[in-house]
């Protein structure tokens, strides 16, 4: 925030000076002579807050999660330290995971319910960043999710209404965007293998380029109901300048679901789509 605000201020001053110079030039003697009723310079247009965006890092293109090893220097995630109830879940998940060769298991997403933050950020389809004054918007292709991160100096509300992606505010520390999120629906998953969390889940994301085409997001989960200490993971994203985010309507032709016992179900009924 500090740097962006400073740059915004500088740009606004420069711009105001430039506009004022322009105005002085326009008030040529000929113009002044031809219009006695408008002797003063035309009102200068206020500097656009969009000018400040030019100082932000280039995160153009779209970004796809790389499932390879983290960048050199990035610490591999350790085991999360969990409260007893969630430790039991975690152990059961690890045992199942071992039996099922590391594959994913049944969850609400089979029925087109989108994942909440932070799981929404590590889907196998790309994400895109948009910068506008006072806001960073993240478009997540999977489930067509939009995240709005307010960088206008807003602070998190005391008790935001719960939602899948929560309520986010952010600020810039140099070229790193730091995002704080609260108010995430308690029935969502904060980590593969953990189902549900308390209403105190807080996510901190530090987002920055680690090389020209690799964006790294370090995600820290804090929730005294689940984690005995904050748990951090790091994910790398590869830039694809020639890709475009596509439409994703989960309900269009979904054959997957959960049955009443919580098992994965698969429909072989014909559907009209496509």
């Amino acid at each position, binding site marked *: 925030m500090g740097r962006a605000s400073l740059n915004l201020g500088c740009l606004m001053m420069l711009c105001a000076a430039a506009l004022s110079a322009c105005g002085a030039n326009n008030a040529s003697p000929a113009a002044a002579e031809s219009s006695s009723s408008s002797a003063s310079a035309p009102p200068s247009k206020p500097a656009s807050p969009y000018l400040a965006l030019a100082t932000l890092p280039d995160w153009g293109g779209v970004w796809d999660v790389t499932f390879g090893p983290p960048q050199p220097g990035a610490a591999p995630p350790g085991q999360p330290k969990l409260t007893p109830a969630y430790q039991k879940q975690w152990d*059961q998940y690890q045992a199942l995971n071992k039996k099922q060769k590391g594959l994913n*298991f*049944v969850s609400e997403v089979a029925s087109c319910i989108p994942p909440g933050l932070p799981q929404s950020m590590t889907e196998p389809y790309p994400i895109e960043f948009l910068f506008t004054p006072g806001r960073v918007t993240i478009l997540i292709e999977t489930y067509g999710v939009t995240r709005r991160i307010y960088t206008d100096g807003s602070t998190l509300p005391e008790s935001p209404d719960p939602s899948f992606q929560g309520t986010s505010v952010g600020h810039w520390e140099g070229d790193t965007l730091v995002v704080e999120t609260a108010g995430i629906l308690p029935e969502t998953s904060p980590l*593969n293998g*953990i*189902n549900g969390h308390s209403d105190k889940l807080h996510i901190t994301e530090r987002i920055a380029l680690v090389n020209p085409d690799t964006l790294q997001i370090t995600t820290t989960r804090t929730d005294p109901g689940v984690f005995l200490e904050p748990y951090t993971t790091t994910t790398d994203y590869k830039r694809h300048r020639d890709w475009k985010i596509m439409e994703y309507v989960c309900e269009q*032709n979904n054959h*997957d679901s959960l049955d009443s016992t919580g098992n994965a179900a698969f429909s072989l009924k014909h*559907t009209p789509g496509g």
Partner: protein
Amino acid sequence: MKSRQWLMAALCAIIPVRWAAAHHSTAMFEWGTEKTLSGTIEKYQWTQPHTFIWIVVPDTSGGTREWGLEGMSPSWLGRRGWGLHSLNPGDKVRLVYYPLKDGRPGGFYVRVITPDGKTLEALPTRN
């Protein structure tokens, strides 16, 4: 296959927890077990969240049977050489798939060999 199905059913009965997953579940397929089918494309659905192949396959009794195979999304496949018309009704193809655990004629398609002999990969190599 049956014992694994029983195991999953037993575990799910004991643990009424719906596990978090990165995306849609693959739990209903024998993931990683490659099987092959040859037949005629009836319909190719270029749809979200999954593409779908309907294919008519000769059976052992001289008749035919319709199979339904789910695949990756158009967004994933479209970035890797597939398109709306990669498969067309009437195309005679061979395909590799992971079968459904419950034995019904369905599964998840892994790659397709088109009439001109081209192989179209339909899953990330990390799988």
